[in-house]
């Protein structure tokens, strides 16, 4: 046998071993299927939706963390407008000169007014500003992460020029939100694991049922010299076909749900929510779910059948 023929034989053998292609149809496909493709479709749809939710939450957290990691907020809490303005200007100068500061922005008064308008109402002051004194805000972006040490450093630098300054790390404000989102992420992961286990359990029960129904045929094949692996491959192939078909249907269903939900969330116009959109790698990962379901179903079927066959002579 030439090397090319040997290679072809080995490849064919490997394909047969995995897919069961070329094996006789020892057990009719119709006797194995039943509701299995629909069960797999539902499982895959739920898994894809849960995974998409988990990925969207992860993207939200990563995006928010990236934006806020080096962020500091300096508030000049001074009731007198002129003093507030002076300390703000001094702080800006001091911050611009401070090593480790990448960017500094004094939030314009109009923007502040707009932000608090829903709570305190519109402008009614003589100079167009609000009657209620609002602290000045300075948005600072550090080159490094805004940890406690950096915050203390900025605070110390501002103390001489702006005694009314309060310095806070922006990420600190969102810690509880991150915590809640992380919990939801773990929930999504737990759901995916549970759904995978439920899929394996459904396949296990279907394989056992099919084994019982086709026991006579299996015994005949055994007596004619059929191996456990040959019989297992028949079940593996059948359940693989079911899983592939169910997986495609389930994935399509999930896509419809995800796209509809995506449109609804996009309509909210909330920054944090919009940061959670799915990227290309996320879609690739989601597309792997039906494939993973088919592989999981085939492996489960193989182990179930091989285990059951070992009890037969």
């Amino acid at each position, binding site marked *: 046998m030439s090397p090319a023929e040997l290679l072809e034989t080995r490849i064919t053998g490997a394909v047969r071993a995995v897919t069961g292609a070329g094996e006789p*149809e020892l057990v009719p496909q119709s006797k194995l299927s039943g509701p299995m493709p629909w069960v797999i479709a539902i499982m895959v749809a739920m898994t894809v939706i849960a995974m998409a939710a988990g990925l969207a939450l992860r993207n939200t957290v990563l995006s928010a963390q990236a934006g806020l990691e080096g962020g500091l907020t300096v508030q000049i809490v001074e009731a007198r407008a002129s003093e507030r303005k002076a300390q703000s200007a001094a702080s800006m100068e001091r911050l611009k000169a401070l090593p480790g500061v990448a960017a500094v922005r004094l939030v314009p008064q109009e923007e502040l007014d707009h932000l608090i308008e829903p709570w305190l109402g519109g402008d009614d002051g003589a100079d167009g500003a609000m009657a209620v004194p609002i602290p000045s805000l300075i948005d600072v972006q550090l080159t490094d992460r805004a940890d406690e040490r950096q915050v203390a450093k900025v605070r110390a630098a501002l103390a001489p020029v702006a005694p009314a300054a309060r310095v806070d790390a922006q990420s600190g404000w969102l810690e509880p939100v991150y915590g809640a989102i992380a919990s939801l992420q773990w929930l999504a992961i737990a759901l995916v694991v549970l759904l995978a286990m439920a899929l394996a359990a459904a396949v296990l029960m279907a394989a056992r049922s099919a084994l019982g129904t086709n026991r006579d045929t299996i015994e005949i094949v055994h007596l004619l010299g*059929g*191996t456990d692996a040959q019989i297992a491959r028949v079940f593996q192939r059948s359940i693989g076909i079911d899983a592939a078909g169910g997986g495609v249907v389930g994935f399509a269903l999930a896509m419809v749900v995800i796209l509809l939900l995506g449109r609804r969330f996009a309509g909210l116009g909330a920054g944090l929510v919009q940061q959670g959109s799915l990227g290309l790698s996320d879609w690739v990962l989601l597309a792997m779910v039906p494939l993973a379901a088919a592989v999981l179903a085939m492996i489960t079927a193989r182990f179930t059948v091989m285990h059951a066959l070992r009890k037969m002579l």
Partner: protein
Amino acid sequence: MNKFAGEEIVQFDNVGLRYGTDREVLRNLSFTLFPGNFYFLTGASGAGKTSLLRLLYLAQRPSRGAIRMFGSDAITLPRERLPMLRRRIGVVFQDFRLVSHLSAFDNVALPLRVAGASDRDLRKPVSDMLEWVGLADRMDARPATLSGGEQQRVAIARAVIARPQMLVADEPTGNVDPDMAVKLLRLFEALNGLGTTVVVATHDVHLLQKVPDSLIMRLNKGQLADPTGALRFPPRRSAGKARQDGPAA
């Protein structure tokens, strides 16, 4: 140690078989089958013929005793090696046991397929075999649409298609007309002539006379009688076959 050790195809040593906790259905069976002989297994209904055949075609392990087949210890042989041993045995089941969703062609092709033959390689031998048993025009028929006799012929074709070293048949002519019964016996004899050891269980005494060189194993209430002496003095094919009416020695 048997003086023919290494040549025997089957060797039973003090074999007993019981199902569950019932009494033994086979007791103290000790005999040897040699390659190329034609054996008839006879006995009344319930004598244990089918149980003995089940041991021979490795569908059952005995409750006690030792069995060697084709030089291997069939009792301690690992499960994964059983298929290779079974492929050397052709079986005609009393109830045919055809695979209901497969056509006559695919049923006959099954032993070749499990042995790894490709569709291209098995088409001609399977067609020839079905033609030989008179079912060339019924190749695509499912078992349910075949008569009892036709099913039996498919079962026989399936048993012999892979040219087994030993053919075990349980009442193989029970459902066919006399002409077909003779024809099937001739097939078994032809196979036997090619070196296949044939074991046919039957209660039809007329059948025994149709194969003059055959050896008789008679089961009575689970125990084996040896009317021809063939079990006590097992003939070897090279030394000439024993006649059924007298011991070989």
